[in-house]
């Protein structure tokens, strides 16, 4: 039994779904953040696998970009969460609905 590219794509789909479910179901901002990371990395996996299957480097290039953006996003996002936690003593996103119209 050979491991084809479909396996990678399946794994990526599973990871993406887990991430998406985590994002939608959990209330702790920190955990939601981790879920987003999961989704991002599942996409990275897709890129790398697809790039390998097609035989060019575009996929790997895209992954590098995603990683850079994700790193920046984590920095800012974590800082925001820390600040919010200091102010409100909670990281529960349901309680952070100040933008309600």
């Amino acid at each position, binding site marked *: 039994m050979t491991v084809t590219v479909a396996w990678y794509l399946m794994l990526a789909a599973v990871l993406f779904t887990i991430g*998406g479910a985590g*994002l*939608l179901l959990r209330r702790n901002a920190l955990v939601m953040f981790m879920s987003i990371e999961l989704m991002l990395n599942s996409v990275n996996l897709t890129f790398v696998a697809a790039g390998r299957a097609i035989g060019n480097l575009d996929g790997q290039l895209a992954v590098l970009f995603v990683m850079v953006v994700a790193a920046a996003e984590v920095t800012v996002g974590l800082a925001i969460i820390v600040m919010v936690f200091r102010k409100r003593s909670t990281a529960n*996103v*349901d309680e*952070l*609905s100040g*933008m*309600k*119209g």
Partner: protein
Amino acid sequence: MVDFIWIAVALPLLGAATLLLFGKRFGEPGAGYFATALAGTSFVIGAIAAVDFFAGGHHGELVFLFSWIPGLGIDAEFLWDPLSALMTLVVSGVGSLIHLYSIGYMHGDERYPRFFAYMNLFLASMLILVLGSNFAVLFVGWELVGLSSYLLISFWFEKPSAAAAGKKAFIVNRIGDFGFLIALMLIFATFGSLGFGTVFENAGELLDEGGTLVTVITLLLLVGAAGKSAQLPLYVWLPDAMEGPTPVSALIHAATMVTAGVYMVARTGALYELAPFSAGVVATVGAVTALYAATIAIGQRDIKRVLAYSTISQLGYMFMGVGVAAYTAGIFHLMTHAFFKALLFLGAGSVIHAMANEQNMDKMGGLRKAMPKTFATMAIAWLAISGIPPFAGFWSKDEILAATFNKGGLYVVLWIVGLITAGLTAYYMSRLMFLTFWGEKRWDEGVEPHESPNFMTVPLIVLAGLAAVAGLINTPWKLSLEHFLEPAFEGLHLAHPPDGATPWLLALASVAAGVAGIAYAYRRFLVGEAPAETGPKWDLLENGYYVDDLYGKTLVLPGKKAAEQLAFTADAKGIDGAVNGVGALVKQLAEKAKPLQTGLVRNYGVVILGGAVGLVLIILVRGAL
């Protein structure tokens, strides 16, 4: 070469700018000295430049400044001929004296430097007006004069009446300017130029004598002149303009602004010569205004208002003069009037100053002893305006009347009107003098009249000297002024007094009218008890036949109503309604869309995810977007 004449305009202009910017540093009295020195220098420069004309025969020259509107061929250019030279000397000379007087009169005013800035601006504007070599430059001066009069009349703008008077002067003048501007457009359309030289030289070829076009142009010019020179029916701003400081009244009503109309008609004599009808209208408007304003002056109690109506009346004489083509006589009267009316206003200012700002003649009387210099100088002006020889007013007024009489026909009626006005003038001026300087002391308690400081009396004395002798420059035996002005009116058919013994009889008649007026006033006010002058008839006169009320009801009120309609209906409901309606619509839509924003991150996440899944589905099903 008189290229340097531009300095005479630049100096007061520079003074105005300097005092507006750095007036506080000059302070009092520095600002006054500075402004007076500049005005005086302007006069000296004008006098030096005019030297050539005294010899006679010199036609003057054009002084090119810069190309202003090359597309229309309009240059900023001055015309230095005997007429503009005379006007420059009168304006800057009398103007300088009034500046000097103001140093004393405005003492202690909190906006002292600004006052002199405006005075300098006024002087510069008037000089631009009289020096312009084309209608465009003249119009610039014309408008600047309107602006500076507005600034000066409402100088004490804390007083609502002063602010309103300034506004009134400006608006009424704008009505006149409107006519003037249309006339300029017609002139440009006809001649393709606004230069005096081009227009007057080609007038005979391009315009039919007595034709419609030239008549319309000249009548529109008259509208402009009537606005600036306070003739019927646009005179209403002038009496109210007394709200300004007294030196301003002297400057506006004697030396500068109001003479602009007379100057303009004289300058455009070549056009009026082609339009006998318009010239007749000018003369008639002048005569009627002269009589009309004189009757109102009889009933005024405010010393400055008497002089204001007297100015309107005297301007009527000037219009009569230029209307019958006696341009020299009209300009002559303009000049003598500048002297004696400036003197009267400054004298009245001196009286008001001494009486602690009291202007009602009922509260004066017996001031002869308290203010000998003011009294003596004003007495000369009184005799001058009453037409008693040999004082200045007699010669100029008589020349106008004689020239009018000599025109014959219906002009004799105008002569009679002028003669009656002469009698009335002598009467109301005597009334002013008798009520102010003779009789009982009717002063308010605590008022201690005193002679004014030298700054104020010196200009009075100088003007008194001029008012006494200035008439002698153009007597029937020695027509110096006429020779002086001759080059400026070359080619025009000037009206002259009749030959033979008739002028003597005419002069006798006008002197008789003057003496009769004085005698009647003497009997009425100095022999026995002075009459009370109350009752409806006197109210009618004191309120100027209620013309202001009439204008208010027929013109101002409908205007206000229309403005209110526009402001509170068309604007507030129509335009504002449309704008606010758009806003309200957007707001309501937003109100509906608001619930979409729940503030819960999960909801947003679901929507994004749903959207992404949806896009993927579409791509999968259709193969493309």
